[in-house]
């Protein structure tokens, strides 16, 4: 039962957000709340929460240098080391992190295990998760950059270039963006995968569905607003610029689809710092990826190092002196003086 509720509750939550946005047309006076106050609160929550989380992580030290090495170490000079997967230099780390962040290097390794003939384990490449994840994240980034044209006056030129490049397959008016298709397809894939795979369903939490439902709702509402339920873009931009320049003013007649989209976005970004979506910052701090495999050439210091109880050689020799002498093993104590202890 709880398996189903993990999916139902997040769904209800997202529908509730959409219904709440309806208030913006029922009570036009509330548009100040939806258009100005909620965005300010959400952005504040996002920034404060984000910083708080990163500072909390950064406050915990990394006591040991524990890179996961995925390639040959730098050892003998005639053996070619893997400078990216087993990085010993800062450039290597930069390369490894760039590969991880831009191309999801580790996920690219993904394989899936299958048992053939009931006994042989076979590991096939499984790049769908990598492809879906990469497509989703890149599309999201481009969409965000494209959105800058709503916030900048005069418009930030790269955001126009991006928009025209993204709309290169102009099939209808208004332009249909490639990234809109990609993000819808990718998020749908990630959601269907989570629902369809018995194993992934087992490990999924309500929060995993909530993030997906929210993102999907944001994307769908954005696409619908653009292509089917037109809103007054001039008015939207007026509002966006007024909010961003701290001279908030709500133009009339923007329309419900926009307020739904905006409220969903606000909920998403306010929730962001308290969710797993913080992996965006976390991956940068991950000690198994961002540390150098130079362990034996440079000493790494543990800031909270403390002494521990050890069994010293002297104590050891006290325990075993007589048998050591008998066996002809050298000892430290002056035995010629007739030491009587030990044994």
């Amino acid at each position, binding site marked *: 039962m709880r398996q189903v509720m993990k999916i139902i509750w997040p769904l209800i939550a997202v529908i509730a957000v959409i219904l709440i946005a309806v208030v913006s047309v029922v009570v036009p006076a509330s548009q100040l709340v939806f258009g100005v106050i909620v965005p300010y609160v959400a952005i504040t929550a996002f920034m404060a929460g984000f910083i708080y989380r990163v500072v909390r992580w950064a406050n915990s030290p990394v006591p040991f240098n*524990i890179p996961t090495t995925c*390639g040959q170490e730098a050892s*003998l000079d005639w053996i070619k080391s893997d400078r990216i997967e087993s990085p010993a230099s800062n450039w290597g780390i930069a390369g490894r992190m760039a590969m991880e962040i831009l191309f999801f290097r*580790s*996920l690219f390794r993904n394989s899936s295990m299958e048992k053939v003939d009931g006994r042989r384990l076979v590991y096939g490449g499984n790049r769908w998760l990598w492809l879906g994840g990469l497509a989703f994240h890149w599309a999201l980034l481009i969409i965000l950059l494209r959105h800058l044209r709503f916030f900048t006056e005069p418009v930030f030129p790269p955001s126009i270039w991006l928009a025209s490049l993204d709309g290169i397959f102009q099939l209808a008016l208004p332009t249909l963006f490639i990234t809109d298709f990609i993000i819808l397809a990718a998020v749908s894939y990630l959601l269907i995968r989570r629902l369809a795979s018995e194993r992934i369903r087992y*490990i999924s939490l309500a929060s995993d569905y909530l993030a997906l439902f929210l993102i999907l709702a944001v994307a769908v509402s954005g696409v619908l607003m653009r292509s089917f339920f037109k809103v007054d873009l001039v008015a939207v931009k007026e509002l966006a610029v007024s909010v961003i320049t701290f001279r908030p003013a709500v133009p009339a007649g923007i329309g419900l689809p926009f307020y739904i989209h905006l409220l969903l976005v606000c909920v998403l970004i306010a929730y962001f710092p308290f969710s797993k979506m913080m992996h965006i910052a*976390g991956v940068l701090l991950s000690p198994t990826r961002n540390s150098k495999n130079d362990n034996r050439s440079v*000493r790494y210091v543990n800031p909270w*190092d403390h002494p521990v109880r050890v069994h010293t050689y002297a104590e050891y020799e006290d325990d075993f002196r007589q048998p050591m002498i008998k066996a002809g093993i050298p000892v430290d104590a002056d035995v010629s003086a007739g030491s009587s202890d030990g044994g």
Partner: protein
Amino acid sequence: MRMFLRGAAMADKLRKPEEMAAVDYHPARHDWMDPSVEYTRGSYCYAAPLKNQEQLQLPNPRQWNPLDADWKLPPDFKQIILSGMKDRLGKYRSWKLFLDICVRCGACADKCHYYIGSGDPKNMPVMRAELLRSVYRRYFTVGGRLFGKLAGARELDERIIKEWYYYFYQCSECRRCSVFCPYGIDTCEITMMGRELLNLLGCSTEWVVSPASNSFRTGNHLGIPPHAMKQSLESAQDDIKSITGIEVNIPINKKGAEILFVTPSADYFASPAWYTLMGYLMLFHEIGLDYTFSTYASEGGDFGLFHSADLAKSLNAKIYAEAERLKVKWILGGECGHMWRVIHQYMDTFNGPPDFLEQPVSPVTGTKFDNTRSTKMVHICEFTADLIHNSKLKLEPGRNDKWKVTYHDSCNPARSMGLLEEPRYIINHICNHFYEMPENTIRERTFCCGSGAGLGSDENMEMRLRGGYPRANAVQYVQEKHGVNVLACICAIDKASFPPLLEYWVPGVETAGIHELLGNALIMRGEKPREADLRGEPLVVNTAPEDSAQDV
């Protein structure tokens, strides 16, 4: 003296391989949030004996049994765990981060050898971490406090402690999942912290605490006193003499030697690690190395690592202390897995800097081991590869012709060091027939033997065989394809656990250390014609056994 196939006696009590391999990968119908665990024979580790708990001054020492209903936990166990968690969240960024950022994408799920071998969904790395995360959420996050179970949060109770004990001792800290995780989440860190928390309640296992306690007192995990260690080394000396006619020197606790040699103690007591020891002794004799064994630092493997950072540090301290006392210049380390995790990633931080040592330089080739300039400890494979590269060894790979070799990358040298090429370089110079296992099962993707991180106890045999199944399966592949009959490796736990594992899953494949094979191939000055290999078995050269004498 030589122990062999400790687990073989258990084989008749075990279920059949076909039955063991018939794993159901459909997750249980019940929700994972239910912490109930059924302890079944063969799949859990015994509790640490009272005397060893006391010797190491561990908390809440008592006689107890995981099968008992009452684990005799301290009355305030909840408080102990929660303050232990708080403490470690402040000390380990890795742990805090890994509790927070998992997105449950599932990429790790089928990467764990225990999951592949058992099908138990809580052996998926993501779930192993969720066992801790759920408690973390409940007590350390707003969402968990507010939404409880819906947010994936669980109340801490005694059943969760029992669940943790079961699953944190079904992880061999091999780090394979961390290779595949898009954020590098390392279940080893999760398991290490999970075990540290359990230890705060006095819940630790016999096969971790007893070896650690032995190491503390006698310097090695088998509890060998110094005189017995000497006898054992002399016995290796005898074996070498009978095979080569050469009497090798065995320096022990020799002050002023150039190099301290530290190797896992299994090398001088257990087979087939024993033959690896013979290989070292022959090599050191042949190149005239000025070195010494130590009876005080007679264990390379650090069983403290499987218990807590403090105990790991305590046991590891002996190596530098002994190097200083014996006034050596640098340290050479033998074939071992987790020993090298500690030496490469922890030793210098734990117990350094070793200012009293010098940067390691090979006395034979003059090579400066620049990569060890701070820790001052060289891996035997780095050392030997350098000797071969500089043509300092006369080798006859034909003496290993009876072996069709494959190589198992031991987890820690592969994923925590990046020692991938040196062993292969050596094998290629000492064997004529070397075949790699499939690429998804070697190098950084290597599979654990199933018995690492203190899980190698006899009572845990079923889980060991299950965990070792993916490795054995890859061995079977090269056995069928190329006729492979020996698995070379560089880890003492491998050498102890592969014989029963391979006997069970892939009969006909033996286990050998690289330096055993080197000892076979090494042509020593003044040696008599070899008639036997280091195992005392007739030497087969180029499939013409009757001609073996001509080959020297």
